[in-house]
């Protein structure tokens, strides 16, 4: 791809990753959450694949696979965390620990430090979606063309 595209990609990649992280992080306060933020971040990586060619990221396939598995395991493990009460019980909400502030009822300026296991699950899903969608685009770019492997 031309110099213009590459330069803009170098500028846009950190912006899209940070924006994706923002959407993931604030999932319990504003529209967004795990899947949406992961998709935004993955679109940044897809831009890299289009601008620089798939071979630049081809060595990272193992990293994507590991990140995806880690995200899945983290999500399921967070569900197990509540097993003292019931599965998926939100044990951190309102308890004063990580993400434990009590939530005010009704319209309010949102507090990031609330909602217990929800932001953690959002991160797990965000990593998984980022890794999964990027791997899909990467594999299509590497193996989907006319050329054989």
């Amino acid at each position, binding site marked *: 791809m031309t110099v213009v595209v590459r330069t803009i990609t170098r500028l846009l990649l950190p912006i899209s990753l940070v924006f994706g992280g923002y959407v993931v992080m604030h999932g319990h*306060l504003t*529209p967004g959450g795990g899947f949406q933020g992961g998709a935004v971040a993955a679109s940044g990586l897809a831009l890299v694949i289009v601008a620089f060619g798939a071979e630049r990221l081809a060595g990272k396939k193992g990293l994507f696979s590991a990140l995806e598995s880690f995200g899945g395991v983290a999500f399921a493990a967070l569900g197990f965390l509540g097993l003292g009460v019931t599965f998926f019980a939100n044990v951190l909400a309102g308890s004063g620990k990580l993400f434990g502030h009590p939530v005010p009822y*009704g*319209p*309010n300026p949102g507090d990031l430090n609330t909602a217990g296991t929800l932001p953690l699950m959002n991160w797990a899903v965000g990593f998984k979606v980022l890794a999964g969608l990027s791997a*899909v685009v990467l*594999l*299509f770019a590497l193996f989907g063309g006319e050329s*054989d492997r």
Partner: protein
Amino acid sequence: MIGNLPFVVCMILIALGLWTLLAKRNLIKLVIGMSLIESGVNLFLVSLGYVHGGIPPIYTYAPSGAPMVLPTPQALTLTSIVIGVATSALMLAFAVVIYRHKGTLDARKIRDLRG
């Protein structure tokens, strides 16, 4: 009658998607037809939650006193969209593999499994 317009549009989308599935032969066009049906069903699901004069169901910086649109169908639609992404990715991946084996994407020529 005009309040039913979103539902009519959704049904038109679903009908268009079904027609694409039945009438087209190219594998990629079949995937597009499936994606049309998905869009129609997701749109239908979201538009079920509408409350007249409602605001988005978010408490952060919400104006007080306004009725909120139902949030549950939005969650259901999001789940459905994610599932749609996964199925489209899988179908396209298999279409790519079929193309590499057969050199064609015409569904009538890919008839190894017959009878």
